[in-house]
């Protein structure tokens, strides 16, 4: 059946359908650069974390919680009611005097005109008015309230009544009440504060505490994620495949950077939602520049803190091979996050200038939680911030070497928990 020359028989080579075969490594692709390896590992971490159910559920929930929280706070703040006082058309001068007195005292008070005493009583009864002045005379003002007159409005109305009595006397004596009022208005107490309190003190302390809480939550979520990720690779043995082509430090660095990036993005999102809303609704009564400065510092401190703790989490995670053992080795690091946080949020509101906080704000392992609180509260001088940043950065540099050695010495060894000294010795 075959043709003329029966000799040149190439056997019918059954080439199986599949990838083009011959590659013996001679034409192997060049090894990827360090930057590309880091980028690949980092990208995988980011996409894995972004896709995780915990992240997909928690992030929107947190945004909703922030919006609802700020909304509730603004409602509550608005609810410290403006009191409204009604005056008959005839008592316009008294109404103007009350407005002026309220302004001078910095009290939020509004005056309205009511047509007649009966209507005024009805409005007070309905709660539309807090008080109504239904008659003025030589013996002062006759005021209608439902239950009682609040102290501030009472004091202001008293001042108005006395002013009117005074005006009457001055007129009777032939003087000019307006001149006297002007002279009285100019006289007052002039205070020289030796150590003036920040009028926004409360708002700044609140910002400090909220900053602390957010950093604490983020560090406690994303720090242990690093340890779990390391153990996932060990327990699934995928680390054996990876380390045939990736150096241990590259794998560790890519993981820390990737998870840190996800944590940072989440915080940026929270800040982008919460800060404009809090400033806009007046919940946070601070200049925008102060708020933005504080947020920027907080994000920087998240990065410093995450680097510190994540390196420790990665190294300790490498010591064990099963997820159930992770908690056992990472507890000390979790305590390093919890303790400064608890000290910070409990001491800061009552004693923002505490010496204890000043010390903790520069100690590298507590600084990432304490220092941003102090910065937000406005109680840390510049040199203290600079010192804390420098110490944290130096500690990170030292930890990169130390934890890198531990990780490399431990990550390939599966089985029972590896002792720290063995991990350091064995490379």
């Amino acid at each position, binding site marked *: 059946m075959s043709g003329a020359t029966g000799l040149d028989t190439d056997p019918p080579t059954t080439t199986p*359908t599949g990838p083009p075969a011959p590659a013996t490594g001679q034409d192997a692709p060049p090894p990827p650069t360090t930057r590309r390896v880091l980028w690949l590992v980092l990208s995988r971490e980011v996409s894995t974390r972004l896709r995780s159910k915990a992240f997909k559920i928690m992030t929107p929930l947190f945004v909703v919680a922030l919006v609802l929280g700020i909304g509730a706070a603004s409602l509550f703040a608005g609810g410290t009611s403006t009191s409204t006082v009604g005056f008959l058309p005839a008592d316009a001068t008294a109404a103007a005097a009350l407005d002026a007195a309220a302004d001078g005292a910095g009290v939020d008070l509004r005056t309205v005109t009511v047509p007649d005493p009966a209507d005024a009583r009805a409005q007070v009864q309905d709660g539309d008015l807090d008080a109504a002045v239904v008659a003025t005379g030589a013996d002062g003002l006759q005021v209608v309230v439902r239950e009682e007159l609040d102290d501030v409005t009472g004091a202001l109305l008293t001042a108005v009544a006395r002013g009117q009595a005074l005006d009457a006397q001055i007129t009777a004596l032939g003087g000019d009440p307006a001149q006297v009022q002007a002279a009285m208005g100019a006289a007052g107490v002039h205070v020289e504060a030796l150590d003036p309190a920040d009028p926004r003190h409360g708002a700044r302390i609140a910002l400090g505490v909220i900053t602390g809480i957010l950093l604490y939550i983020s560090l406690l979520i994303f720090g242990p994620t690093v340890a779990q990720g390391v153990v*996932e690779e060990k327990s699934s043995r995928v680390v054996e495949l*990876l380390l045939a082509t990736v150096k241990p430090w590259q794998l560790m660095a890519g993981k820390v950077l990737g998870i840190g990036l996800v944590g940072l993005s989440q915080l940026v999102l929270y800040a982008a939602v919460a800060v404009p809303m809090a400033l806009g609704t007046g919940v946070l009564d601070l200049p925008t520049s102060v708020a933005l400065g504080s947020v920027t510092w907080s994000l920087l401190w998240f990065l410093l803190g995450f680097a510190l703790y994540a390196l420790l989490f990665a190294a300790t995670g490498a010591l064990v091979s099963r997820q159930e053992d992770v908690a056992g080795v990472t507890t000390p690091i979790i305590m390093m996050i919890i303790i400064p946080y608890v000290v910070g949020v409990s001491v800061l509101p009552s004693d923002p200038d505490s010496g204890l906080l000043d010390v903790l704000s520069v100690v590298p392992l507590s600084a990432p939680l304490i220092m941003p609180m102090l910065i937000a509260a406005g109680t840390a001088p510049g040199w203290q911030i600079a010192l804390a940043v420098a110490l944290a950065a130096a500690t990170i540099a030292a930890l990169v070497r130390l934890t890198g050695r531990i990780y490399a010495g431990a990550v390939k060894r599966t089985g029972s928990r590896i002792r720290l000294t063995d991990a350091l010795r064995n490379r």
Partner: protein
Amino acid sequence: MCSRPSPGTGRAGIRTRRVWSSDTEGGEVPGAALTINELSKRYGDIVALRDMTFDVRAGELFGFVGSNGAGKTTTMRIVLGVLAADAGEVRYDGVPLTFDVRRRIGYMPEERGLYPKMRVGEQLEYLAQLHGLSAAAARTATRQWAARLGIETRLGDEVQALSLGNQQRAQLAAALVHDPAVLVLDEPFSGLDPLAVDVMSDVLRERAAAGVPVVFSSHQLDLVERLCDRVGIVSAGSMVAIGPVDELRAGGASTLVVDAPDAPAGWADTLPSVLSTGRDVRGRTELRLAAGADDQQVLRAALATGPVREFAHRRPSLAQLFREVVTHEPPTPADPPPPATRRGRARWKKEGRP
């Protein structure tokens, strides 16, 4: 292509301990050999490997067999650099393995290793890119290997959602996706259905034909016998027999089956070179001959008793050889197996490897 083993090495005529002189492969296959040279590894008092030595030539399918805990996995892990050897070295193309050479090995670890919660396709692309492929090349290679291994419809699924057999196919794809220059596969066939075994066998043969040295471990000895160019039998951390399956079988003490119905009992007991005799269920005489014995002498003796209906050599199967070699490892003067080591190995097996 290979020289026969010289008779008399070892009790059963099987080569023992690095007596194999690797004669050059007669082929045109490109590529280079993987050489495992005198690897030793201890875990505390326990000897895991003792002078483990063999080579896997370019284009060769090498079967690595041995009892549980004999040292196969330890050897492979040392080749991959997952473990460090106490002594000895691994060479590729005559040069000790460096990190850049190791990244060209395709590896399938015994306990498997993929991210359980990552999608198969993304995972294969990721591994390919870590080995230096561009994103596009990685995608192409992933699709091709998935199609070849029959998991192309599962690329979008998480690894943990796959059946064990498909996970194994994915694992093989992970070992192949970067077009490795060497393949090291630990138990690639365990748990596969017959169809998957065929696919896996074809792929391994094809890679070997492309010049890649392929070494795999297995307990399925019939499969090893069918598939491999050469086989190495490991016991207690050392290579105790190595060579082409046929040669190993030929070198083993052969059994002669003689059907001589009129022969009296014990007719062959006194013949020279006969180690032992027995009868099978059908009344045929089975004789174990020493290596190099003259079977014609036996035939003449059988004919002397009357008619001879059957006279045949029965070669030992690889499984029989394995049992023989592993259970009667001959002591050699140079390297006596210390009893303590044997006990140590038994203990080691129970505790499991780290």
